[in-house]
């Protein structure tokens, strides 16, 4: 029997208040907030965070890693290899990218699900659009990971039941590589395509699973076409109260990460013996049915989705635009950093990506700020640099930059955890390393989930 044996998610710390958009852009906006990747996050770093959250909850080493995104840090070069290094996976574990569309995430989910060994699927996205565009408003940044395995690897939390998919070529949105945002065809056209595709896929998968639509306990619908997703859910035959909230008001639509993020969200709300259906609308329709087991009741997700949605801070629209490179602000008057040396980085992979120091791995430890400083003079993609001397619980020390933090809230004695980030980009090379961030979501904080599940 094959099934999900773990999951994890990463929702960035920052939120954009959608009402702020029209004040600047003169158009767009709306209500609620969208999640915003910090200036030092990209799809690779967020994938690492989601992967870490997953592997912190289940002690199984993946034999392969699939990474899906619509917004890769690199082309030509594999991005999953950096995630592999940061997760300290074994050399023999293979790492692959599935890059391009939301459908890439389902490809990766199936590739890992239909594998024979423990396999990790990670999806991550930074969704941008031109200022004031629907994609900017509706988009969100997030990552999620699902670990598949067999009963012999770990207790199955949700068994794989059935899958069905259909494919159809049509152009409802498109983006040429290098463009800031997608272009959209008249919205109604996509809706008339997706709704029947969804019905076809769901009908087939429910037949394979030998279930009726109204017996589904949770339906997750993911896809970039918001209207089509809502209409497909409504037409699915699954009772309205069983349709999983798409987190539109708090996270936004995180593209390729949405199927996994909403699935993780559904799993965190699920009780044993429930049927979960996943529907993804992206140039066709993919439908998957899973059934939760008794083991899910005792699974404690590291940094649950709901807790991460709550633990957030606002980012002003102007700063958001500068983080995405859409508003080029005056840089600090310091020399820009040199690109990291590929060969030096190659020799230091254990340290640079795995934060595996001479005296042991620091990546998964927590520490305490011994002293700190705020540097308004140093180069940073988003000044000022907040920097601290961190003493880890195992006795090691690391002077390291802080992130996801307001300079005014830092204090000696503050507890921090490590997070994988992109320090800067030079000559196109993403300089990945670790930073510390204030501890905001306790891994053993399962109270919220228990409450929701009951």
């Amino acid at each position, binding site marked *: 029997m094959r099934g999900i044996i773990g999951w994890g998610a990463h929702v960035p710390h920052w939120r954009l208040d959608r009402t702020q958009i029209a004040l600047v852009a003169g158009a767009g906006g709306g209500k609620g907030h969208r999640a915003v990747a910090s200036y030092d996050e990209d799809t690779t770093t967020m994938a690492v965070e989601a992967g870490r959250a997953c592997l912190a909850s289940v002690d199984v080493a993946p034999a392969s890693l699939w990474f899906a995104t619509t917004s890769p840090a690199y082309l030509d070069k594999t991005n999953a290899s950096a995630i592999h290094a940061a997760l300290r996976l074994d050399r023999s574990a293979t790492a692959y990218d599935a890059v391009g569309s939301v459908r890439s995430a389902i490809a990766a989910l199936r590739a890992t699900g239909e594998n024979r060994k423990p396999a990790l699927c990670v999806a991550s996205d930074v969704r941008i659009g031109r200022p004031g565009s629907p994609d900017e408003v509706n988009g969100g940044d997030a990552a999620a990971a699902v670990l598949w395995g067999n009963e012999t690897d770990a207790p199955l939390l949700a068994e794989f039941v059935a899958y069905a998919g259909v494919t159809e070529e049509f152009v409802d949105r498109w983006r040429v590589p290098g463009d800031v945002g997608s272009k959209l065809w008249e919205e109604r056209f996509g809706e008339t395509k997706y709704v029947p595709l969804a019905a076809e896929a769901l009908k087939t998968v429910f037949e394979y699973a030998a279930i009726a639509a109204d017996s589904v306990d949770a339906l997750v619908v993911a896809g970039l076409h918001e209207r089509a997703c809502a209409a497909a859910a409504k037409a699915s035959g699954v009772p309205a109260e069983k349709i999983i909230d798409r987190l539109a008001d708090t996270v936004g639509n995180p593209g390729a990460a949405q199927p996994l993020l909403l699935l993780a969200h559904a799993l965190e709300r699920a009780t044993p013996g429930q049927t979960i259906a996943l529907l993804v609308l992206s140039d066709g329709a993919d439908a998957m049915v899973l059934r939760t087991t008794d083991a899910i009741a005792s699974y404690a997700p590291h940094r649950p989705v709901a807790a991460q949605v709550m633990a957030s801070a606002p980012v002003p629209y102007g700063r958001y635009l500068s983080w995405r490179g859409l508003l080029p602000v005056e840089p600090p008057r310091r020399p820009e950093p040199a690109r*990291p040396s590929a060969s030096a980085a190659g020799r230091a992979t254990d*340290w640079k990506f795995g934060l595996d120091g001479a005296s042991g791995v620091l990546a998964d430890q927590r520490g305490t700020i011994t002293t700190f400083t705020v540097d308004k003079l140093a180069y940073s993609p988003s000044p000022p640099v907040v920097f601290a*001397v961190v003493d880890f619980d195992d006795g090691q020390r690391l002077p390291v930059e802080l992130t996801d933090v307001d300079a005014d809230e830092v204090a000696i004695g503050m507890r921090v955890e490590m997070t994988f980030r992109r320090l800067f980009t030079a000559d196109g090379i993403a300089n990945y390393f670790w930073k510390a961030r204030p501890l905001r979501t306790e891994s053993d904080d399962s109270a919220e989930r228990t409450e929701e599940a009951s």
Partner: protein
Amino acid sequence: MSSHGIRDRVAIVGMGCTRFAEHFDKGTDDLLREATSEAFTGAGVRKEDVDAYWLGTAQSGMSGITLARPLALEGKPVTRVENFCATGSEALRQAAYAVASGAYDLAMAVGVEKVKDSGYQGLNAFPIPNDGTQRSLTAAAMFSMVAPAYAKRYGVDPNEMKTVLARIASKNHANGARNPKAQFRKEMPVEKLLAMPPVAGGLSVFDCAGVADGSAAAIVCRVEDAARYTDKPLVIKALSFVAGNGSGLEDPSYDYTQFPEVAVSAADAYAQAGITDPRAELAMAEVHDCFTPTELVLMEDLGFCARGTAWKEVLAGTFDRDGELPVNPDGGLKSFGHPVGASGLRMMYEAWLQLRGEAPEDRRISTYGKRSLALTHNLGGYPGEMVSFVGIVGV
């Protein structure tokens, strides 16, 4: 430890120092020619008479040719040295040892830095290819962590701590105001300094060394030959140098209230010079006040006062020009400016002027005529990862 030193074997017989300033109209060559010319003239020698040269520059040029070309030296050994911000002292140390060894009769140490051609504020190290995991803080931010750590350890109220640091800057500004070669020649009262906005931790730009271009030079010979060049030589009593191994950055017991490399180099220098009570024996000290908290901690690392007491001594005026032990009577890095490779020799230049009674009346140290030893302390790097030089000279 077999650090024997070269006490009383080598003398400084000529020195030169440019004004430290934003010399947008002068290049490295101009600064080198100006500083060396003053030293040649003072010692009454020609460039041909000097047997070997040491050039200290952190990043204004590479190789001895940086000096040989502007001076048009013919067939001379010229060595370029670099040791962070202690580069100028390192040049002097090498020249002095070369003379002490007997390899040369007359040697020159020159330090220079042309920092204001970069187009950026502050100092900027050229990048050595690396794995990208090095921290990228400014030196100001690294040293800013000393202040809260010190205040916490010794129970100094944070506001009082600010006053202590402002007092240090104010003293050095007062000294620099009386120095025609200093970059900043304006007195700064404590109240004005306290009102400055912070840029790195609690430090304002007025807690930081001046960023200046400049050059300084010294000519050394064996003590027995010194009378040929001057009747008032400066005799080298000690030259000590320690390069830390960077372990402080990862050592959880390191608390940012002291610089162990400095304490070790000071102990070595005092042993070489036979000094047992530096506060009572030294006439003055030039110390590496790259930032105000640095000077505070150095007072303890150099043994001028007990641990945890420097802040009180600062407030009491112990290190003022008319205090018990004048520190940075020329204005220090704070006010005189800090052209990296030149600073160590600039410190020695003030010892040269003060001990020989050549410092102008309004800048003369209170100890003049009563004590005859001066200390220069020059460091490079950061708390936890530092090089430290301590030199002692006498007349």
